[in-house]
């Protein structure tokens, strides 16, 4: 009797200590999550603040005359230059005129060309249109070029600032939503550079990657998990698959170069090859996740199916696979998200390139979103800084959308037992 008393007393004495330890453990957990969240918020905020500017673009309202001779010469920039000079008739010296026309983007003429192509009856007409301003004007408007700094240290001279201010006073110079960023291909002029080409490149690559790696990965997993005998050979295969998942991605790029380009003679820079290389990289991830999903299906399901007289194939296809599918999809999406962010393997197969045309098929030259970010980050023009951050935002949105789709699919197919 006295023994049990001392026993429960001992428990009572240790109880507060154990409660404290538990509380401390929970606090550590919360602290860890808080630190991780803080870093995430800082990162997202930094990218957001830098990149948000690129969604707007400075444009200038100009009254342009669709002059017949210029249209014949295909000299669209001359129309822009003429209307700028008409707007500032007081500018007479040659160097000043040059400075004045440099306020406008070299792509402004292409805007007019596109208008004309859509409506050839414009010849000889006079229209007021909003045209793209140069990146230096854009940077001044967004505050990335400091008006207060000495003239010799900024890329916009005092004269130009006077012109810009008079345009602003007339309401002829404004920040507008930058649709071109979402619809255009790459350009070396920051104000004309768009993300759509890289976006399509990523879509094509991921489509190939998915079409190759998902069926192959799922079939491999089913065979290894449900049908293959357990012997030394399957052990070797299993170890190899696990090792492949840890191979640095650049190695897959070298493999792609040696096998797909040099041996099979597939085209360079094509999203088809990019997707194939990424598929090699994603396969192990998908196989491992799919096997884990199959293993999680309780044996009672299989036994019940067999008991009802189903064959092994029927058991797997009708009962096990549907139950394992949500887990497989999750693994696939994780693998695809990894593939979406890869640029190293694409370097070897020529997808790190300057490509203006938007790819329309699997064999057209293309880049991918991470590659575009890399190329813009390396460009000297200051306006590319915000475009780099904006491209990162696009990539993140793409990623989040992919994950959302995965969550929705999983919720839809999920079955409880």
């Amino acid at each position, binding site marked *: 009797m006295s023994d049990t008393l001392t026993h429960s007393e001992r428990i009572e004495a240790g109880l507060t200590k154990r409660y404290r330890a538990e509380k401390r453990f929970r606090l550590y957990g919360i602290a860890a999550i808080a630190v991780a969240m803080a870093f995430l918020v800082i990162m997202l905020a930094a990218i957001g603040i830098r990149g948000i500017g690129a969604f707007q673009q400075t444009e200038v309202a100009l009254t342009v005359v669709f002059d017949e001779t210029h249209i014949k010469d*295909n000299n669209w920039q001359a129309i822009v230059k003429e209307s700028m000079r008409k707007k500032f008739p007081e500018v007479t010296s040659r160097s000043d005129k*040059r400075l004045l026309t440099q306020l406008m983007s*070299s792509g402004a003429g*292409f805007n007019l060309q596109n208008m004309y192509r859509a409506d050839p009856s414009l010849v000889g007409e006079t229209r007021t249109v909003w045209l793209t301003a140069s990146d230096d004007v854009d940077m001044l408007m967004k505050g990335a*070029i*400091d008006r207060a*700094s000495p003239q*010799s*240290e*900024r*890329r916009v001279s005092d004269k130009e600032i006077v012109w810009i201010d008079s345009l602003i006073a007339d309401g002829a110079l404004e920040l507008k939503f930058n649709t071109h960023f979402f619809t255009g291909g790459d*350009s*070396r*002029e920051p104000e004309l550079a768009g993300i759509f080409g890289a976006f399509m490149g990523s879509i094509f690559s991921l489509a*190939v990657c998915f*079409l*190759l790696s*998902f*069926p*192959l990965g*799922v*079939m491999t997993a089913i065979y290894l998990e449900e049908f293959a005998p357990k012997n030394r050979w399957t052990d070797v295969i299993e170890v190899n698959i696990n090792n492949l998942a840890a191979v640095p991605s650049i190695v897959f790029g070298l493999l792609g170069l040696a096998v797909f*380009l040099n041996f*099979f*003679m*597939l*085209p*360079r*820079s*094509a999203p*088809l*090859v990019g997707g*194939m290389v990424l598929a090699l990289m994603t396969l192990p991830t998908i196989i491992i996740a799919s096997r884990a999903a199959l293993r999680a299906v309780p044996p009672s399901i299989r036994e019940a199916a067999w008991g009802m007289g189903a064959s092994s194939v029927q058991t797997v*296809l009708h009962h096990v*696979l*549907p139950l394992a*599918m949500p887990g497989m999809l999750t693994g696939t999406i994780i693998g695809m998200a990894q593939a979406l962010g890869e640029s190293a393997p694409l370097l070897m197969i*020529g997808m*790190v*390139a*300057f*490509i*203006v*045309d938007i790819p329309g098929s*699997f*064999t057209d*030259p293309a880049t991918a979103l991470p590659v575009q970010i890399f*190329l813009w*980050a*390396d*460009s*000297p*023009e*200051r306006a590319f*800084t915000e475009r780099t951050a904006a491209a990162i935002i696009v990539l993140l949105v793409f990623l989040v959308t992919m994950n959302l789709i995965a969550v929705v699919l999983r919720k839809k197919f999920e079955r409880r037992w």
Partner: protein
Amino acid sequence: MFKKTLTVAALAGIVVAGGAAAADMSRDQIRIVGSSTVFPFSTVVAEQFGKTSSFKTPVVESTGSGGGLKLFCSGVGDEHPDITNASRRIKKSEVEKCASNGVTSITEVKIGYDGIVFANANAAPAVNLTRKEIWLALAKDVPAGEGKTQPNPYKTWKDVRSDLPAVKIEVMGPPPTSGTRDAFVELVMDEGCESYPWIKAMKKTDKKAFKALCQSIREDGGYVEAGENDNLIVQKLDANKDAFGIFGYSFLDQNADKIKGNKVEGVEPTFENIASGAYSVSRPLFFYVKNAHAGKVPGIKEYVAEFASEKAWGTEGYLADKGLIPMPKEERAKFAHDATALANLSM
């Protein structure tokens, strides 16, 4: 579900087969590879060419000068590039490699110059250095009397020259894989090193030792390899007033509100000084055309003509706006003539 998977697999097979078939077709788009220094200029021309002509915009890859020439020299045919950019001249060994793979006719086009600047933050004091002093500050071993060397003892700039500030030597520059590094070694380190007569004499007697002494950069923290991204160096210089950075002129041109180029041998790295040749740390940039492809891949001649036009590489051309230093007028005329005629390279 299984049937669906099968269809998907079949579709993937068709895609793969389609790709293989496309590779046999003749190419209608110019492929350019090569130097990351020439990349910004080459891409501007490619974009202009694509927008103003009826040809497709060329695809330009940034592979580095050496990597570009390797791809370029690997043969004639659809899968090999048509043009390669280089921030140095093609080597004799590369011409031979080309020839052994059937690339026998190459046109060399010099496009202009690139200055390499020794820059620091605007807030930091300006310095005027000689190449000898830069070498002394960055070399792994420095002379200790005639014929003898010692590990670099200089910790601050004041140790190198007594009127320089007493701040720690900290220079951020490109890694050995970069063409800018090659050019810096050749134009600054070698030259600075050769200002010692006994080392210069060694160049003839023991070339290996000469190279080891002149081209080895210190590894004790005085020189920081900052990666290939020059924007990053600019940002670091802006934050660290004591540091110097080594990069191409176009980055100085774009960031004059943050950094300034320092005088080397008493000459400031300005557009005019580099163009006139007064600023000693500048190098020529080139591209090479595979003549066997001209006429087969549409647009090669027209692209070369666009590059070699006054509106591109002239003193007021759009490449000058991007930071390329144009060649003198006579040199432009000569190379424009050779380029349009696709004259074969002579070493």
